[in-house]
């Protein structure tokens, strides 16, 4: 059974103007040990796909109009909120783009991390070396020690001291390490990373990428790595999915897709990489005549499928 199996996922978002279809049939399978790069232009639905897997979109605005998302065989679109909360943190970890806004500024790092650890340990006490029958204080102490150990292993020295500090006392790169540590403290099987290095400078970026790579090797987790940077995909990922306007237009092993892109949009994306390769996070825009050709090609493939 695949770790994550998304099939024909349809999502509409409600707003004042009415309901807009955003995801129009996403298919994606992630196995343990795989790092899937998800690329595509802004607004193509990458983030919403990631948030859907943990069901973090508000049900007042997000409506799932078709398909299913199986995590370890469990259909998350039909799971209750209680079941979802057990998956979050403990089975599915998430990290986001901006490390400056994703840590709560009013609380010490340790407070936030211990809460994350304690929550994950409710279903899996073994991650803190517990049996589940310990006192509150013993659990807290174990959560604290596990957090310190994890931060140290992520290259944060004096983690014991750092735990007592507030987010604004850390650099961006350190904050992102802390956030990855918080996402990993529950020892999840799947890590969803939504542009985790976009806000960091290049040297810090490669440290974070190495850290994620190490996690996959050591723990055999599956990763969904959302990015704009095809250079990063080439370095880090084993597989890549190319999204365009709510659809995955091409997917496969990185070696195959990046060497011989089949879809016209993938080729356009690769052409748009600046020659000073991989140094820039953003892609040059795609001009309009090309956009029309992409649309035409997508329409043609869609017809083939229905025919």
């Amino acid at each position: 059974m695949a770790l994550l199996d998304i099939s024909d996922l349809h999502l509409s978002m409600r707003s004042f103007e009415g309901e807009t279809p955003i995801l129009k049939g996403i298919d994606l399978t992630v196995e343990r040990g795989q790092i899937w790069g998800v690329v595509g232009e802004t607004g193509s639905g990458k983030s919403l796909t990631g948030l859907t897997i943990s069901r973090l979109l508000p049900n007042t605005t997000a409506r799932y109009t078709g398909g299913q998302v199986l995590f370890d065989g469990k259909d998350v679109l039909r799971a209750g909120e209680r079941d979802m909360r057990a998956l979050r943190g403990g089975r599915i970890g998430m990290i986001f783009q901006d490390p400056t806004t994703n840590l709560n500024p009013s609380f010490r790092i340790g407070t936030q991390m211990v809460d994350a650890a304690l929550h994950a340990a409710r279903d899996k006490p073994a991650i803190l070396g517990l049996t589940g029958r310990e006192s509150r204080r013993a659990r807290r102490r174990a959560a604290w020690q596990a957090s310190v150990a994890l931060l140290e292993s992520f290259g944060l020295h004096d983690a014991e001291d750092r735990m007592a500090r507030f987010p604004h006392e850390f650099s961006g790169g350190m904050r992102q390490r802390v956030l990855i540590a918080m996402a990993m403290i529950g020892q999840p099987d799947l890590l969803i990373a939504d542009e985790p290095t976009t806000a960091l400078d290049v040297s810090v970026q490669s440290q974070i990428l190495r850290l994620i790579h190490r996690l996959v090797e050591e723990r055999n987790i599956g990763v969904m790595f959302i990015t704009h940077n095809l250079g990063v995909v080439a370095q880090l990922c084993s597989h890549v999915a190319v999204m365009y306007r709510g659809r995955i237009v091409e997917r496969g092993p990185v070696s195959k897709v990046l060497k011989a892109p089949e879809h016209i949009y993938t080729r356009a994306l690769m052409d748009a990489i600046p020659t000073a390769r991989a140094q820039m996070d953003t892609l040059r825009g795609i001009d309009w005549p090309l956009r029309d050709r992409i649309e035409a090609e997508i329409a043609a493939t869609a017809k083939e499928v229905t025919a």
Partner: protein
Amino acid sequence: MLWYVIRRLLLIIPTLLGLSVIVFAIARLLPGDPVGLAAGPNATPEVIASVAAEFGLDKPIPVQYWNYLTGLLQGDWGVSLFSRRPVAADLAEFVPATLELVIAALLIAVIVGIPLGLLAAIWRDGIFDYLTRTVSLGAIAMPRFFLGLLLQLAFAMALNWLPLSGRFPLIEFPPERITGFYTVDAILIGDWHALGVALQHLALPALALSLSPLATILRMMRASTIEVLQQDYILTERALGIPSWIILFKYTLRNAVSATLTVIGLYVSWLLGGTVLVETIFDWPGIGLYSTQAILGQDFMPVIGVTLVIAMIYLVTSVIVDILQAVLNPKVRLQ
């Protein structure tokens, strides 16, 4: 932190000095004849001159100010032209009464307003949200004296649950004076009967005074909670699976309260300046009533005294608010 507090408190002194110059000048330069008023309509010029001499009002104004200032430092706040009582003694009696009322009103406003604001944000656009929105609009718009009258009609006259007015029954002795706050003194000497009586008298005026700040704090708290709930870190906390009650009552609450705190601080001065009507309706012997009488009688020593006391309370409050702000929000640096 300690140094910061000491420095801020020391800075209050020059502010008060400057203020005292201004208030003194305004009070003395205003048209009017306080000495004549005090001496009475039929006073002969000799009597008027002797009254002026008694109060030192025959001297040039800078000299009067200097005498006043040196007196202040020795605890002498001047003498009321009418009652001929020392202003310091009056203030010692009336200031605690008003402060007790204001603090009680503020406590009600904060203790009720903050949780209701949080709930209104959580159930945003639900029935509870609409209900509190409508009621708080009404509460902000309703004049305090009118609200006071309504409360008197309902709880004192119709239901007869609470006393109509006053701070303590005339036939009983208030608790022995330690701080001048009847409730605090009653607790300090362990007189539970007096505590109950004092609270009963405090309830209606405090409620009348609290409603407007309560409504404002509620609205402010709702807005800042909604703002906080949209922050990235809340999404991260949800993605970590942290239970929603911890996210709300721990991680959201502190950030939202620290945004609301400034408004709460501003309300202290609003309340201090706004007690007059409530004190009048409830016959509450505080500085509101005291200063109104003094202003009408051009009795300027009490006016200056009250102004300085209110300014001092306001300045100390702003130091307290800044300290609380720093406690709640580690990014605020005290220096």
